[in-house]
């Protein structure tokens, strides 16, 4: 089931509706909003579906507050998402793209002990161009950030990742991770990846890395030896690669995995 059908099934009617899921979480569902501006006190969970409109989002996450955002890009659209986090706040973003979109995240960790986690997966096919850029600014000490972006490019598509972790001079004891992993399917697909660190503090733990790989031939051989066809083995491997990102997200994660699988079948 796709994400929108899933929410309709749970009673969603129009953009802005709130839907309670079986885990007790209340999700506000937005469809193609032009502008989203929120100040979060306490906790908030948002689902944003992008299919036709460019979206500009701005979140202020207050002290001790938490924000969860799930985004699905089902159209060739652009979005920007700026997050400002105060001390002891948490923000968790899961973003999936199946339609050649451009997503631009800027996270500002402005209060101590704030933590940010971003998980993003995309599959690009045909002549699509999918772009994810993530800038995390560690402006104060003792914050944590962890960004993981996984891309799959098939056909003649292009996948792009631009990452920057900025650690200000006073942002001691920063713990920042940024990872970009990609799979190129076929010789006409292209991945561009540019992970960067800019560190001005001296007591920090930062790691970044990027990989671009083909499918793992040994894994395909292993699966075929158990009876799967080569095509099934390849598909299962790509599915596994991207599903990793979404499966921690419960029922919503399953829908996102479904969206990714549908896209994969169309490659």
């Amino acid at each position, binding site marked *: 089931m796709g994400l929108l059908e899933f929410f309709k099934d749970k009673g969603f009617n129009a953009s802005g509706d709130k839907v309670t899921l079986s885990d007790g979480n209340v999700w506000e569902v937005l469809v193609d909003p032009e502008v989203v501006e929120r100040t979060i006190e306490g906790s908030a969970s948002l689902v944003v579906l992008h299919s036709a409109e460019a979206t500009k989002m701005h979140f202020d996450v207050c002290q001790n507050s938490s924000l969860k955002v799930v985004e699905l890009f089902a159209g060739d659209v652009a979005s920007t998402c700026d997050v400002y986090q105060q001390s002891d706040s948490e923000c968790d973003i899961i973003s999936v793209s199946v339609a050649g979109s451009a997503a631009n995240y800027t996270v500002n960790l402005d209060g101590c002990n704030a933590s940010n986690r971003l998980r993003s997966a995309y599959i690009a096919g045909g002549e699509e161009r999918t772009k994810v850029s993530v800038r995390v600014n560690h402006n104060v000490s003792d914050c944590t950030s962890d960004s993981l972006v996984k891309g799959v490019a098939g056909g003649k598509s292009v996948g792009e990742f631009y990452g920057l972790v900025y650690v200000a001079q006073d942002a001691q004891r920063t713990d920042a991770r940024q990872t970009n992993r990609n799979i190129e399917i076929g010789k006409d697909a292209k991945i561009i990846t540019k992970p960067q660190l800019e560190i001005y503090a001296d007591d920090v733990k930062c790691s970044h890395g990027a990989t671009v790989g083909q499918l*793992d031939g040994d894994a395909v051989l*292993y699966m075929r*030896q158990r*009876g799967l*066809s080569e095509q099934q083995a390849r598909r299962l491997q790509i599915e*596994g690669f991207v599903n990793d990102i979404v499966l921690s997200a419960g029922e919503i994660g399953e829908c996102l995995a479904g969206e990714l699988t549908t896209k994969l079948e169309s490659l």
Partner: protein
Amino acid sequence: MLSVKNLHAKVGDKEILRGINLEVRAGEVHAIMGPNGSGKSTFASVLAGNEKFEVTEGTVEFMGKNLLDLSIEERACMGLFLGFQYPVEIPGVTMANFMKMAVNEQRKFRGEEPLTAGEFLRMMRETSAGVELDSKLTSRAVNEGFSGGEKKKNEIFQMAMLDPKLAVLDETDSGLDIDALRIVATGVTKLHTPENATIVITHYQRLLDYIVPDYVHVLYKGQIIYSGDKSLALKLEKEGYDWLINEHKE
């Protein structure tokens, strides 16, 4: 069941198998031993259909068919199972999902209906208990983060799930402590019936204390230079391969 005649295979320009002859009938257990680099793992890979190796001469018949004409997955579906020396990790793909596809693909090949989710789960539960594989592992990604022993147990678990006609176990004992070795070997013995056959490739006699072979073959420089019964393994353990190799040279 399996008839190998004068099998030659190479990787790149290097000939590794230089004329292997082997007959395996239903109900038999064969052990293949031999020094490092003698071609044991290559033989297993060639039987499984690994495209890295090129067969240059000879024939292999399996269940009445020309094995060398078949794809890797066709061989698997016909009942050829390879227990990998180094089982591969597949991130994001759960054991349950992977095994369900494998079991149902093999059923489809045999013209059987796929198992329902319930039937499959019951089968998986019973089978994992049978080989003492922690049932939690079946909900994890394939081999990811498994210990060496767990990976090998997982091979035996998959073998039990797929119920092959011929299992080729490539150094299943390497890297196992004595308890894991016992569990793996007991699992293999339990799965053995008069209708199926097993080829155990091993370095050490140790494994053959648990899996008692009908025949022991010594592979050296790509050929089986000597075959005997299980007492051969004991003699090799004590005296090494030198006497055989010298005899072969003469």
